[in-house]
């Protein structure tokens, strides 16, 4: 009977299931008007002046607010949404970087460099939406969670001696921000793997397929970044859910062997490249879960100016007729694939020429016909990337193991001069520079020794520093933080800040296993809040939907990081404790042994004993006799 009934029940179950599915589908179709989880993937490739190539991967997932969508996710990584909900993170950025961004040749005034050039190692900052006294606990737990999620020792940021609280100089200026860096953290495959697992297609399809580990880590610079903004927990404002932005920026050398050959013969011919030659892989088809997947080729402003497109003057009209031959077949280079669209940058006030963006849609390609864009240079070109207003570098001064000084030097770049003169009003123009510097507690900085040099002349600090905020370090408790706003005249050639410090001592158990390597001082952040790096491409319908291009349109202040400094501290002889213990023990043994000997020995008694011994030696009988007589005499006395 039961057996007979079973199929019916099964059928019924299937029926109801189907019905439910339909119902759910209907429901979601209804909701489609509101918001949905979205994922898009983009890759931007840009030739760099020094024969290198920049590849910038941009993946963006967004989840609608959980109030309307619940806690279930189709595309959005669950780990991230749980993290946001648990720690009430408003905004967070985590970056893993290896190598140093070369601001001089790779530029510093475009959206890519100002938001993706990061200090080496791990950098983490987060803004929390929790009461002030809970922030530190949230931060601590967040670091542990992230360390588990990304296979890195981010949990070292939990101790108060490693993170700081920037007051106002750090861009997402608000009171609840915490900032920490680990400059010597290694970055490798194990960090990339969990990062890729957050993508709906992982590294199995479309653009992410290009991420071949050996070719990525062979590069000169790679920075893997995760940025998330959430309006979930905030009570005020529009609830737009969580937006997770994952970017990977790599600077690679296209086919290095040939480049060297070419380099020897013709100095300025850029190496030709294709995606398959750089990454060893091709893009076959798109990730079906992605809303859009496209590849861009960006030609820099400087490069476009060099190339002299035939109808550069009336570029705007040419861009409207997108099929214009002139833009993609040029006497100086050749593209292996016809671009689907061409975007021209909207003319901005502070540059002579405009950059060009070629767009390729990956959707059109399949496994049988994979997408592989290549660029072949025909004539040598040389150009310069747009620089930051001032080029910042940082170095140590002084010698010895006792004290020294940190200097941050700012040098004006050629680019800014023209811009400054264009922008200055009646000669009284000022250049605002924000400096944010964290110094670990074992480097004891004397803030009173801060000095400013402008054009190599020592100047009064108050003349140039508009605002300063200092929180001195506490031993083993908190690092020293310095935030300075400098107002420099526009015509400045060089400026320098110096500050002196004493090297501190650590306890023997606080030294890392490779203490002789030295200790890192995290990068200083130099930002120019009056300058905004943005690239606005001509308005178009599809443009609004591309997250990468809308990211480029955002006005973010120009930022640059200085070098990480390595300070050698005096390291103790690590075998010293054992030596001390052995020597101490020996000394104690000798001291106490002899002391006890002295204390216990009764000299008089001993002498008597010796005498008795001597007497013994004389003979037993006389001794006995004397004893007996003494007893007898004694008793006689007693009896008395």
């Amino acid at each position, binding site marked *: 009977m039961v057996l007979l009934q079973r199929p019916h029940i099964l059928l019924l179950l299937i029926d109801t299931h189907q019905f439910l599915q339909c119902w759910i589908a209907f429901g979601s179709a209804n909701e489609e008007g509101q918001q949905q989880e979205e994922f898009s993937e983009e890759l931007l490739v840009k030739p760099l002046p020094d024969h290198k190539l920049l590849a910038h991967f941009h993946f963006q997932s967004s989840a609608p607010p959980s109030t309307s969508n619940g806690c279930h996710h189709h595309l959005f990584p669950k780990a991230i949404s749980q993290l946001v909900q648990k720690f009430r993170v408003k905004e967070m950025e985590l970056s893993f970087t*290896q190598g140093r961004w070369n601001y001089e040749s790779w530029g510093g005034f475009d959206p890519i460099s100002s938001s993706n050039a990061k200090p080496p190692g791990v950098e983490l900052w987060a803004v929390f939406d929790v009461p002030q006294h809970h922030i530190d606990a949230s931060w*601590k*737990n967040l670091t*542990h*969670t992230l*360390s*588990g*999620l990304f*296979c*890195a*020792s981010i*949990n*070292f940021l*939990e101790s108060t001696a490693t993170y700081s609280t920037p007051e106002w100089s750090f861009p997402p200026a608000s009171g609840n921000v915490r900032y920490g860096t680990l400059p010597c*953290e*290694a*970055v*490798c*495959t*194990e960090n990339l*793997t*969990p990062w890729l697992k957050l993508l709906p297609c992982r*590294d199995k399809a479309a653009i992410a397929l290009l991420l071949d*580990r*050996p070719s*990525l*880590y*062979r590069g000169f610079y790679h920075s893997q970044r995760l940025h998330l903004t959430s309006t979930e927990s905030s009570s005020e404002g529009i609830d737009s859910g969580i937006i997770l932005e994952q970017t990977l920026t790599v600077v690679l050398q296209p086919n290095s062997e040939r480049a060297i050959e070419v380099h020897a013969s013709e100095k300025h011919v850029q190496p030709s490249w294709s995606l398959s030659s750089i990454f060893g892989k091709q893009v076959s088809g798109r990730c079906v879960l992605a809303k859009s997947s496209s590849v861009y080729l960006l030609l820099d402003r400087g490069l476009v100016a060099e190339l002299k497109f035939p109808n550069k003057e009336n570029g705007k009209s040419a861009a409207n007729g997108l099929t214009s031959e002139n833009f993609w077949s040029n006497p100086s280079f050749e593209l292996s694939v016809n671009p689907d669209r061409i975007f021209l940058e909207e003319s901005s006030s502070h540059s002579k020429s405009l950059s060009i963006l070629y767009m390729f849609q990956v959707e059109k390609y399949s496994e049988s016909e994979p997408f592989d864009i290549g660029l072949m240079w025909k004539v040598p070109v040389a150009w310069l990337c747009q620089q930051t207003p001032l080029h910042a570098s940082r170095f140590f001064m002084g010698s010895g193991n006792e004290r020294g000084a940190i200097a941050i030097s700012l040098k004006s770049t050629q680019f800014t001069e023209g811009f400054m003169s264009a922008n200055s009003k009646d000669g009284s123009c000022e250049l605002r520079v924000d400096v944010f510097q964290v110094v670990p507690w074992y480097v004891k900085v004397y803030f009173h020794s801060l000095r400013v040099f402008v054009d190599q002349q020592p100047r009064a600090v108050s003349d140039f520093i508009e605002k300063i905020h200092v929180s001195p370090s506490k031993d083993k408790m908190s690092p020293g933080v310095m935030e300075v706003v400098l107002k420099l005249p526009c015509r400045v050639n060089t400026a320098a800040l110096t500050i002196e410090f004493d090297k501190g001592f650590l306890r023997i158990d606080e030294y*890392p*296993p*490779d203490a002789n390597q030295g200790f890192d001082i995290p990068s200083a952040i130099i930002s120019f809040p009056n300058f905004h790096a943005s690239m606005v491409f001509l308005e178009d319908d599809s443009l609004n939907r591309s997250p990468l291009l809308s990211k480029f349109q955002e006005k973010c202040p120009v930022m640059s990081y200085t070098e990480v400094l390595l300070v050698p501290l005096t390291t103790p002889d*690590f075998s010293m404790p054992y030596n001390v213990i052995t020597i101490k023990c020996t000394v104690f043994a000798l001291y106490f042994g002899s002391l006890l000997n002295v204390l216990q020995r009764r000299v008089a008694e001993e002498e008597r004993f010796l005498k008795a011994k001597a007497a013994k030696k004389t003979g037993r009988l006389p001794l006995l006799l004397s004893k007996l007589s003494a007893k007898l005499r004694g008793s006689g006395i007693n009896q008395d």
Partner: protein
Amino acid sequence: METFINPKSLFHLLLLPCLLLYSSIAYNSSPVEAAMHTNNWAVLVCTSRFWFNYRHMANTLSLYRTVKRLGIPDERIILMLADDMACNTRNKYPAQVFNNENHRLNLYGDNVEVDYRGYEVTVENFLRVLTGRHETAVPRSKRLLSDEGSHILLYMTGHGGDEFLKFQDSEELQSHDLADAVKQMKEKHRFKELLIMVDTCQAATLFNQLQSPGVLAIGSSMKGENSYSHHLDSDVGVSVVDRFTYYTLAFFERLNIYDNASLSSLFSSYNPSLLMSTAYYRKDLYKRRLEEVPVTNFFGSVMETIHTDAAYKALSRRNSGRFEDEMSLDQSVHHIKRRMLIKVNDGDEIHDINPEGEEGASKCPWSTFRNKFQKAENVDSLLNYGLVAMIPLLVISTWLVQ
């Protein structure tokens, strides 16, 4: 008056530890049901820092690859690497680690998950992982979440000596520490069977202090012997693998998850002339015969399949049976406790009647101890008992003397 109250309170104080000890022994001595094999875990530790120790990381990663291939998933592998070799600036092959100069196999692969790395690989963290005593914030991926039915493989490689293993060139793990951690694990029911495999100089000495049942240990060399590296890769510039690990891998490369090769065949595969050291294995703590234990017992994740006629039935019966067992165990413990309480009351009465406290005091625990002696076969507990029995006698005698 005072002299009368004092012995009574003293007596109560003395009874308290007795009671505690008694209950704990009652719990220990009762036969605990042997747990079923539930899952497999692997803790793989490379303890050496610096580039010239490349081979230690290659050893660990080779084992990592092997156990992953044989079915232990990443979330049940705790991988500890003391340094970053793959993306080291000295590595000519970025993001790649090789254990053979033919470079056929990239051990680092595309999907490696390192749980502890760099400065995190310390003796403290290692012992925390084994014993499970973590801070609350530590994520699950960094914890060894094994249970009483788990089979754990613990692989360690680095530089060592007589009864110690160096961590990061700055601290040591001693054989006593390891034995203590394993004992704690056993008492916390964190494993059923544990295989400790160590590739270091004088590895055998590291196992000297082990005493927990269910532990099997293999070391690459005896006391006074060194373990040697296998060969040098002139492209990488350093030795890439150690001999012991190399021949272990050679054994495992021939196997897949379905093979039934036994542990004894693994042990007999080590050839002292090839290893240039004598592989040592300690099996006195391990009850099963090594010929019957397949290597996948530790190196893979092969579950015992139970054939059942009907879905879920057998499992539920088994569970319920276990539950009942536990219940009865609990009840028996309660029962013993209750009896003990009664006995304590008896003792009190005797004491009240008899102004000479010593007799009552000796009488009460004595009867219970005698019962206990019959049950407890454990020499340790017997000894403890003897010691505790000595204390009241000693105290009372000194009190009487005064």
